[in-house]
């Protein structure tokens, strides 16, 4: 199936200080597929995401959103198209009522009160927080607060949503909820991108994986193809998901991304 490019990255360069290039000419496109960008600390992942949001501007090269160069758009204009969920919900949340928090973004980008409320209620339902509208976000536990932060971005109805380290400080339940939210967003046609260090989570949820290293792209492919390549991952200071590692040690040619895949395979073999 032909994938429609949402974002095109063309010869993208960036440096904070002259002579010390952080991104050294990136070229790739992002489409509907859920995409995880992984790499060592300092590989340029956060810088790249800030460029997508227009918070930083390229020193050279360009980013096109649906064919249009984002350098012609202000940060405020871009906010209608590309949303980002902060790593720590406490850095994002500032209102004392859940519904106010979720409606803040939609109102800021010019939705009417009625539409903003409708979108916000739908977003809260999608993350499983219907009925929490009048609560104070700070009375909620960390995983629910994270979901409030996610809902406030979903409500803005952007084409692209970036998750910055979605699993940090999340327990098992929290991670499972975030997984299901990402799957729902995917099915609704939102392009989900993440920068993340949690390989098991990536293997479970993301279709495409891009490995950043030293300001360039080292590897780009389906989760199965990327996680099969132990040597390249090592070079990028990463590691294989736990199940993939175990199965490779056991001598299997197939690449297994999660426990279910392997257990099903094993049962079939043993009858």
């Amino acid at each position, binding site marked *: 199936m032909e994938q429609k490019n949402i974002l095109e990255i063309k010869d993208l360069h960036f440096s904070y200080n002259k002579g010390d290039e952080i991104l050294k000419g990136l070229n790739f496109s992002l489409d509907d597929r859920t995409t995880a960008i992984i790499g060592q*600390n300092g590989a340029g992942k956060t810088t790249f995401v800030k460029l997508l949001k227009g918070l930083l501007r390229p020193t050279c090269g360009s980013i096109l959103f649906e064919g249009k160069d984002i350098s012609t758009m202000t940060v405020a204009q871009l906010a209608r198209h590309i949303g980002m969920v902060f*790593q720590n919900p406490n850095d994002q949340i500032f209102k004392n009522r859940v519904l106010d928090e979720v409606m803040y973004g939609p109102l800021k980008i010019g939705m009417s009160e009625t539409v903003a409320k409708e979108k916000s209620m739908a977003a809260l339902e999608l993350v499983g927080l219907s009925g929490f509208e009048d609560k104070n976000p700070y009375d909620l536990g960390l995983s629910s607060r994270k979901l409030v932060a996610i809902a406030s971005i979903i409500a803005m109805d952007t084409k692209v949503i970036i998750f910055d380290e979605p699993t940090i400080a999340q327990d098992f339940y*929290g991670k499972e909820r975030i997984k299901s939210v990402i799957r729902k967003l995917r099915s609704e046609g939102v392009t989900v991108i993440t920068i993340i*260090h949690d390989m098991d989570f990536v293997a479970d949820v993301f279709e495409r994986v891009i490995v950043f290293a030293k300001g360039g792209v080292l590897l780009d492919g389906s989760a199965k193809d990327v996680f099969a390549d132990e040597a390249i991952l090592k070079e990028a*200071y990463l590691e294989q998901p736990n199940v993939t590692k175990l199965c490779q040690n056991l001598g299997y040619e197939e690449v297994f991304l999660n*426990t279910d895949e392997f*257990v099903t395979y094993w049962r079939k073999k043993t009858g």
Partner: protein
Amino acid sequence: MAMSTEHSKIIVENLKYKYLATDFLALDGISFSVEQGEFIGIIGKNESGKSTLCQAIAGLVPNFHKGAYGGRILIDGLEVKNVELSELCKKVGIVFQNPFNQVTGSKLTVYEEIAFGLENTGIEKQEMIRRIDDAMELLDIAKYKDRNPFDLSGGQMQRMAIASIIAMQPEVIVLDEPTSQLDPQGREEVYQAVQKLSKKGITIFMVEHNMEKIASYSDRVLLLDGGRLIDFDTPQRIFSREDLDTYGVEVPAFTRICKELNLKNPGTGCYPVTLEEAYDLLSKEKREM
């Protein structure tokens, strides 16, 4: 308390604690004891009391975070609550969950930041320099020594926070999710560094959501839920419990596979918890297939 625990490094007796302005116990009658040099993993879902227990071991609860406190914690027979923090910090160090909350804000370089704790203990300059250099090398951050602490990335800041505690050479180190922002290999390096300290006789408490790491590094694991201690045992026995779902705890991927396939380690009667253990068991099964 049993007599055998009388000489333990750390003894926690019926510890209870309630934060100000809340109406529930964050810690609810916790008792256990730990020997010198043990590597203790602390697990449980969000709000189960993990961070509060860490703060209590380091004396910040109740000396910094006020609230209602009951029971006691003894480190080498000293009651934590009654020891001045300035004294206690030589015995026990804590690495916060968010390194941002730990940085003093009063120092302009990473080197000075790591020196901060030592400056307040009156240690000789040569000894300070030696300890700072060692800590920076252990955490691989010597190359950032002249940077401003706030110009560091999250991962670099976490390494600096750990180094600044290690430089103090406390006998007990409490780490609250210290590697959440590190890349996988960086995380593994930090675990190996911490394991080295534990082998040298430093007692370690580690809060972590990554169960594979807990399983492969901990001598014993504390399982908390709703402020109560549910279990305190080896990783093998903890992760072989059938009720972990109830406590919002994921088992290591290796354990999950073996549970599904009903493969127990005949030696321990438990499910495997590490890659090596699962490999041994599965490769044997595979040969017989």
